[in-house]
């Protein structure tokens, strides 16, 4: 079985964090992985 090292596989040029990632938490965006709550930049 051929297995590739995932760290060596190409990424998309547009990097996308998972839902609720820290970057969005900083601005009061979707801030909890389980619950979609507050939008926008409070």
């Amino acid at each position: 079985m051929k297995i590739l090292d995932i760290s060596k596989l190409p990424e998309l040029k547009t990097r996308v964090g998972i839902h609720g990632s820290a970057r969005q938490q900083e601005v009061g965006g979707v801030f909890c992985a389980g619950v979609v709550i507050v939008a926008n930049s409070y």
Partner: protein
Amino acid sequence: MIVNQPLAAWLADPAARAATDSAMRSLAAGIARTPAVDALRRGVGPAAGAGATAVLALARAFIEDDAMIAAVMQAAIAAAAADPFCRPSLRATRNEVQDGLLLFSRPELVVQLAVIGADALAIKRRSEAGRAPIAFTGQRSLFRFLKGGGASLSIWTAPAIEAGFSAPAGGRCRLRERRRLADGEVLELDGRRESFLLEGAESDLVYLFASTPLEAGPVGTEYDGESLELVAASSTDDAGSRTQMMLALLRSLGRSDAAPLFAEQLSAPHFHARWQAMREMLALDAELALPHLRALAASDPHAEVRAAAAETLAAFFPDRPAIQESPCPA
């Protein structure tokens, strides 16, 4: 936890704790029976079938129902007054500037009632030194500000977040207008291209918020508050992100028997989810993944996925002509 005397007495009294539990259950049942909540619960499914506009129309009727808001809050206050250990049976939400209660939560719609503290907002804005980032959620939402707090509001626009979104096309956001927020104002935002920033307030804001993930863009975005350039993107899909984490776990466990699950995610609606599933599948079993990789390179609707797939083929399968492969039945 510091246990004061009333709390210690309550903890030591099973009957008192049972009474509190009963009061909270009763409060939850009472809120669920509120005509507006009941109508929302019954209506959201059919509305979701009609799309985001219908869901937000239903939500608007709900958040504009002052009698509903008063009934829910009065019931919660009365229950707490009768028993200080009885908390509203609504999920609490909190971040550095706001505290809220979830009034309604379904996959198609979330509604919350919340307060934004003027002091907390001022501290946050001061710490940002005039460079508050501007976030676009990628989702459609509705705000009703019961108390506007005399807040200064700026509204921003950005290139629309669509299925083919890419960072280079994210461009810059721009200021559309700046004005004072009025008491009672209803603000409908398409988070795929619109956002707002509260720049300061004279007093606390009280608002109702409704948001639907239906017809959301693939990502939410964040723009730098000074350069106004795109700086970050994150998935709008909670379940999709959880699925990605589960694929990573299955891959790390070497569960090649789960390959059909990986293949299934290659047709996920969002481009980033498709490519991440492919990366995981290649790291699970590259031979099984290869026909699917070729398919992505040939016909994925997103240009970056096609390019990444082609780059992977060239780098890792340079001597494997496509004609030798047939799609995996998984």
